[in-house]
Each structure stands twice: as structure tokens, then as C-alpha cells.
């Protein structure tokens, strides 16, 4: 009983890794608290539904992040970049407006009823894991989370562009003076972050059902993860995502009546211990 919960916590944690890394990247470079991130995730899931029903799941898993990345470029070019010198509250309101537009768009195009995306044939069976029978797709979700975390870490740690991203996250002007076009770099990072929201959507589609309210749970958890991990920090967000997955899963067994408040308790406890989050203020 407990071990299956720990496993499910790991699955949800992996999904939060994909979601919150995009949120952390966008905050890290643009200092934008993107309330629309959950709606971008939802849009990714619905786009995935349409693409997968015409082709298959794997095509959707490649096509959706690409489409969402293009949307991210447009989002940066026409919203975040022109607003970068405004009051942060203005930008938050704009992302909140975008959330409303996207929710309405999804309801108009796909309707209000729940939809589902079947897991790909390769992963549709259940497999035996330490004596538990678990859907193979859920193991794949953990794998997807690991791949995303690994790829982002390698990119940021070992590539020159990753170095520029880390530099620009703390010292945008100094980085720019070295010859980095920080505006263009930020646009690219917003595109990557938006693509990750879309990827999280298509990953979630086969195991969480699609509905116009699917964004609200995961966006709140993602904000808890990003704040707990340290605003803008990726490694902090990875750790916090896995921890929150466990807190949710184990909490549901032992403290079912408190399950909904546990993420906030976790956030408060971590912030009292380290006010800047696990990793402080670094990408």
C-alpha cells in the first residue's frame, strides 16, 4: 500500500519536474511569475490529444513541444519583452489574462467534457515492479522526468549557451556587456520553458484526464515547487518537485484529511528554515 503510494508520488514528482523547470527558467531570465504556465500545460495536453488522434502519441510528444516553443517565442516577443521594464504586478496581470484567454480557447475548441489520450501501445500494459503491478506508462513518466532534468542540467552546466543563461539570470546587464544579446537569449529560454509546459501536458494526458480545470491543481503545486526550491533555481526545483510528490502521496495515506494543505505546510517549513528556498537565488 505504502510502496505503491511512494511510486505514484515519484510519478507525480516527475511531472512536476517538467512543469516547474519551465516555470523556473522563465522566472530566472525574465523575472516573470507566469500564471499562465498551467494553462500552457493544459493547451499542450489538448494539442497532444488532437495530434495523437490523427497520428500517434510519439509524434505528439515531439510536435507539441515544438508548437508550444513557437508560442513561447511569440509570448516573449509580444508580452514579456515589451513589459520587462514595467511593474512586476502589470506582468502578473497580463499572464493572468492570458490564463483566462487560454482556458476559454480550450473550452471553445475542445468542449467542456473530459477527454482522454490512450497510452501508446508499447507502454499500455502493466508490469511487475518489486511485486507491485504498475502501468508501464507511469514508469515511462518517471523516465521522461529524468531525461528532462538531465538534459537541462547538461545544457546549463556544460554548454556555452547554458553558461550565458546562468550569467544572465543574476547579472543581465553585465552579461549583455560581454556581447550576449540577452533579449534574444531570454526569448529562447521562454520558448524552452513554454515547450516544457506543453511537454508536461502531453506526458500527463495518458494518466490524468483532460478537462478545462486540469491546470489549476498542477499550477499551484508547481508554484509551491518553484518557491520551495528557490525562485529561478533548477536544481532546487528538481529536489522540491520530488519531495512534494512524496509529501502528496504519503500524506494521502497517513493524513488524508490534511492532504490538500500539506504542500503549503512543506513550503512554509522550508521557507522558515531557508527563506530563499533550497538553492537560494541561482539557476
Amino acid at each position, binding site marked *: 500500500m505504502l510502496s505503491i503510494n511512494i511510486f505514484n508520488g515519484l510519478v507525480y514528482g516527475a511531472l512536476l519536474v517538467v512543469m516547474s523547470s519551465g516555470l523556473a527558467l522563465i522566472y530566472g531570465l525574465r523575472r516573470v511569475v507566469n500564471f499562465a504556465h498551467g494553462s500552457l500545460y493544459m493547451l499542450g495536453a489538448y494539442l497532444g490529444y488532437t495530434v495523437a488522434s490523427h497520428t500517434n502519441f510519439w509524434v505528439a510528444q515531439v510536435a507539441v513541444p515544438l508548437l508550444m516553443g513557437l508560442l513561447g517565442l511569440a509570448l516573449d516577443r509580444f508580452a514579456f519583452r515589451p513589459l520587462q521594464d514595467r511593474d512586476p504586478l502589470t506582468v502578473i496581470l497580463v499572464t493572468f489574462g492570458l490564463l483566462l484567454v487560454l482556458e476559454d480557447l480550450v473550452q471553445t475548441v475542445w468542449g467542456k467534457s473530459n477527454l482522454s489520450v490512450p497510452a501508446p501501445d508499447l507502454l499500455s500494459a502493466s508490469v511487475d515492479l518489486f511485486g507491485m503491478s504498475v502501468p508501464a506508462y507511469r514508469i515511462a513518466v518517471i523516465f521522461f522526468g529524468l531525461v528532462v532534468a538531465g538534459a537541462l542540467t547538461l545544457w546549463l552546466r556544460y554548454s556555452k549557451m547554458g*553558461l*550565458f543563461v*546562468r*550569467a544572465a539570470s*543574476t547579472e543581465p546587464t*553585465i552579461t549583455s*556587456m*560581454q*556581447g550576449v*544579446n540577452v533579449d534574444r537569449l531570454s526569448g529562447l529560454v521562454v520558448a524552452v520553458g513554454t515547450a516544457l509546459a506543453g511537454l508536461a501536458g502531453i506526458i500527463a494526458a495518458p494518466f490524468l484526464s483532460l478537462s478545462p480545470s486540469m491546470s489549476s491543481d498542477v499550477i499551484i503545486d508547481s508554484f509551491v515547487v518553484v518557491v520551495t526550491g528557490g525562485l529561478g533555481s533548477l536544481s532546487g526545483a528538481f529536489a522540491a518537485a520530488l519531495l512534494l510528490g512524496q509529501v502528496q502521496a504519503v500524506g494521502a495515506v497517513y493524513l488524508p484529511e490534511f492532504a490538500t494543505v500539506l504542500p503549503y505546510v512543506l513550503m512554509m517549513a522550508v521557507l522558515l528554515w531557508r527563506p530563499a528556498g533550497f538553492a537560494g537565488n541561482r539557476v
Partner: protein
Amino acid sequence: MSTLLKFERVNAFYGAAHILHDMSLEIAAGERVALIGRNGVGKTTCVNTLLGVASLRGGSIAIGGSGLKKPRPYVAAGLGVAVVPQGRGIVANLSVEENLILGTAAGRKGHWTVPRIYELFPILRERAHTPGTALSGGQQQMLAIGRALMSNPALVILDEPTEGLAPVIVDQLATIFNQVADLGTALLLIEQNLSLVERVAHRYYAMAKGAVIGQGPVNAAVMHELKEHVVA
């Protein structure tokens, strides 16, 4: 000699505050020029206007003969003008070596590479993997200079590089500046320390109230005069 950097009757503003008034200066390839003046006369604003941080609303700035229509922070480095900013601007979440690599962003190839910077400043090699801001003030200044050189610039602008440093470190930096200039790199040294100016620069501009009030060759007599009237 070809002109590397030219300010022609530049008028620059921070918001509504008019800081530079018809500021003109010119630096040719390989020259060692000092820009001197009291705090608040607009020396750093010259740098900030070149980078587009202060807004250029009159006159023109040209790098290597081509005018900058709308100065942007990332443009100058690519055209061969590197800035060592006041306060050094070391990036805290990058290691010493990563701060140096950041200097290659302009994509200019040439003499300077990470190993050559380590030859110039051996202490940076020893501390290559510590965070850039864990260095002492003098070492951070060396790192900022090394990072600027990594862009293989034709001109390095040094904005108050010795501010707050011990005299022994200042002597060390003076030697380094001359070594760099001997390789053919032009220097624009923004300084209030006139003894350093005398050791490094061949020509000076003196500023007051956002404009040039005097210029000429650097020598002991002139520096003595300036010490009384321009800086003190």
C-alpha cells in the same frame, strides 16, 4: 592611425537629467588615453551612453568608423570595445573560469585565451573553480580585466579600476595595463588616481560638468596642475 572610438558632440540623459553636454573624444588604435575628472562629472555616463544604458539624444558615437544608431549593451564588445565596469561586475554564480569564458561571448578570435589570461594572472588559475565573487577585491579586478581581454578587444575601457585597492595592487595593475597596451591594445583609463594615469596614459581628457574642459599629452607638470584644479 585609424580611429577606434569617437564621441562627437554627444548629449546623453538619464531620464530627464541631462548629463553629457556636447561631449567629444577620440581614441586611435593602440593609444593610451586617460579620462579624468571628479566624481559626478559624467565619466561613467560616457561608458553608459556607449552601452545604451544612458540615452543618447544628440551627437554621435562611432566605433571603428561606423556610427552606432541605437547603442545597445551587447554591440560594443562585438565591435572590439570591451568594458571593465566600475565595481567590476563579477558574476557571482559563475566560477572564475566561467567568468572568463563569459568574455568570449562577443565571438572575436585573437591572442587572448584562458591559458594566456592565466599566464598574465597566475592567481586566477589557482582559484579557477571558486565562485568569482569569492576573490579579494584586487583579484576580482584582475578577473574583470581578464574577462574583457577574452573578447580580444581593440580597445579596453577601464572604469575606475583601482578604486578601493591597496597601493601594492595598484602598482601591479599599472604593470599589467602597460603589458596589455604593449601588445597593441588601446586603453581608455577612467581614473582619479593621477599617479596611475601618469604611469599608463600618454594623452588625457579632463572632464567637468559633462564636457571636456582640457586635453593634451600626459606629463608630470600637467598632472601636477590637474591634481590641483580638476580632481582635487
